[in-house]
């Protein structure tokens, strides 16, 4: 079973991603039983999914997180897809969900999620990281937990550090 880092612990990942072909009909696709992350188009086309409790929306880089603004309080989780780790749109989406839209539930990074970006994910508000299945051995993933804390006192305000360094600490004159 794939592994998930949640709240800095490694746990089994019980959710799966529902892949949708470009031509597929978002309204017609069947979401089977079990826990599924579904593309925003499916989530929006099938309002009944919201009542299931075991289906959650998966935002892509081009999606507008505002689309979920009214539902955030009731979602089991929100996932953000990183198709490639160098596609940084998900960091802004996460930041917006946590700040502008006040989302407090599980925020999960899925896709090309690599340990060298764990710290940035964490600081942008992700509390769940789902590297691709098989990407890391258990031992590698254990070692990778250290990357969450690559930078302990970053300069900027972010989701993890509400205030920038100059407001968090007194910095004496150089």
């Amino acid at each position, binding site marked *: 079973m794939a592994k998930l880092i949640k709240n800095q612990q490694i746990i089994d990942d019980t959710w799966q991603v529902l892949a949708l072909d470009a031509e597929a009909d978002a309204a017609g696709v069947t979401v089977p039983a079990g826990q599924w992350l579904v593309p925003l188009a499916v989530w929006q086309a099938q309002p009944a999914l919201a009542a299931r409790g075991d289906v959650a929306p998966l935002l892509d880089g081009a999606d507008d997180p505002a689309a979920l603004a009214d539902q955030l309080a009731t979602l089991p989780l929100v996932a953000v897809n990183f198709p490639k780790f160098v596609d*940084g*749109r998900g960091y802004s989406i996460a930041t917006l969900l946590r700040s502008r839209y006040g989302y407090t539930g599980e925020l999960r990074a899925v896709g090309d999620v690599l340990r060298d970006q764990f710290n940035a994910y964490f*600081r942008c508000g992700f509390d769940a990281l789902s590297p691709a299945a098989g990407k890391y051995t258990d031992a590698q993933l254990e070692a990778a937990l250290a990357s969450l804390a690559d930078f302990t006192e970053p300069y900027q305000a972010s989701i993890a550090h509400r205030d*920038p360094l*100059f407001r968090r600490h007194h*910095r*004496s004159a150089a």
Partner: protein
Amino acid sequence: MYRYDAYDQKLVDERVAQFTNQTERYLAGELSEDEYRPLRLQNGVYIQKHAPMLRIAVPYGNLRADQVRKLAHIARTYDKGYGHFSTRQNMQFNWPRLETIPTILGELATVQMHAIQTSGNCIRNVTSDPFAGVAADERVDPRPWCEILRQWSTFHPEFAFLPRKFKIAVNGAADDRAVIRAHDIGLELVTNAAGELGFRVFVGGGLGRTPIIGQEISTFVAWPHLLTYCEAILRVYNRFGRRDNMYKARIKILVKALGAEAFRDQVEAEWAHLKDGPATLTQAEVDRIAACFVDPDYAALPATDAGYTAALAENKPFAAWAKRNVRAHKQPGFASVVLSLKKTGIAPGDITDGQLDTVADFADRFSFGEVRVTHEQNVVLADVRQSDLFALWQAARDAGLATPNIGLLTDIVCCPGGDFCNLANAKSIPIAESVQRRFDDLDYLHDIGELELNISGCMNACGHHHVGHIGILGVDKNNEEWYQITIGGRQGNDASLGKVIGPSFAAADVPDVIETLINTYIAHRHEDELFIDTVHRIGVEPFKQAVYGDKTPAQRKVANG
């Protein structure tokens, strides 16, 4: 200069540890080439023709003597005894072994230096005026604001993987010496009618494949809002900049596609949520950083030093050097000195380990222990007593750092080009040298007057050829190296892009073509008119006519043999 506190130091140390671990995993095969590439780039490591190239950050061009000595040590120990100052005020080493780079970064960290975000699709080293703090035309010292931006942009978690690289420049003087309108964000320090300090904001400037002059999106952002406003720009860009085509991924393409007004509206809408939030700057933080940039302890001196005046009158070579390489200073009795890295036969911007040590000694002896790097690839001692200029000149001459050519045709701005760079279409250093050799007569050079010649080995435009009065661009045609020439570009307040004069030339013809352009200028110039002004007055046509005559491009090629 800014000095690290424990927090700054810890971040840099943590970066060394992080990159050391990443490089170990790469060398052990745990990290793939594709996974490692962006990580090494964000630490300034390119894989080049001969070896990795390491680009070290020189924040807004400022260095202390101990840092310059460290660069000398690195050049000597890990490289081939020289380094290269780039057009973004950074230092590049062309020959380090990948395995040694974590160690080099560790050494740099001991003198408060690093290679963070000197490449990659992230916010790069902030650049500024090399005469900040000493120029007579300065309204506001840009350096504290550069440092504030440096800290904000360093390891910003949201903006580490932008669509493309992102460059910010700050100017605080009447004359723009930071080419702010050729940057993704250009910031001009201004004061509004109420006397408040703030920034005029330009976005979407840049050279490269699609050269565009930046457009103004705000006439005034008050200083407390600098970071939230930049954050709004970056967020709009990060979300909506193109990622499907790396050649269309810079913010300038987004600004152009939306139009400056629509882009500004998006930024303002985003900013409305961020304004007055936690990232709003505090007076205490600005004061803390500004305290690092107060004037040094200048002695009270007469406006003109009698010994200096006498030496100018008696010594012609010294006077020639002073005319070109010494600049007026805001403080009576002081001057700023440009040490030329444009000696004929040496690649523009290159400096040896011994010269670096010498520059560090000069800094300690003559200029309060500080040095600046210019984007024209020279080195500045900003605070020299007039009474020391003669001694400095003699020592600089001995070190090969006193070529009296600053601002003249042979003060060529030039990228490393095909000799080193993987991206280059053509060599650029030999072109620079061939032009320097052609114009080796100093009196003639001075008669031609101020003229900026910029050479880029490819359209990425590291040599900023678009804004050279004369620009030379290396192009590839059927696997042969050719050179396209533009005239009429300029940096500064009236920044403009040069116009191509016609079909390109073989390397051997470039000095002739430059000479023809110069002769055309001399034939047409009004008294005291600079080359660039003549070009703008009479247009490109007379130059074109002189270079190509009635030849068609095909005939020209035959004529070239």
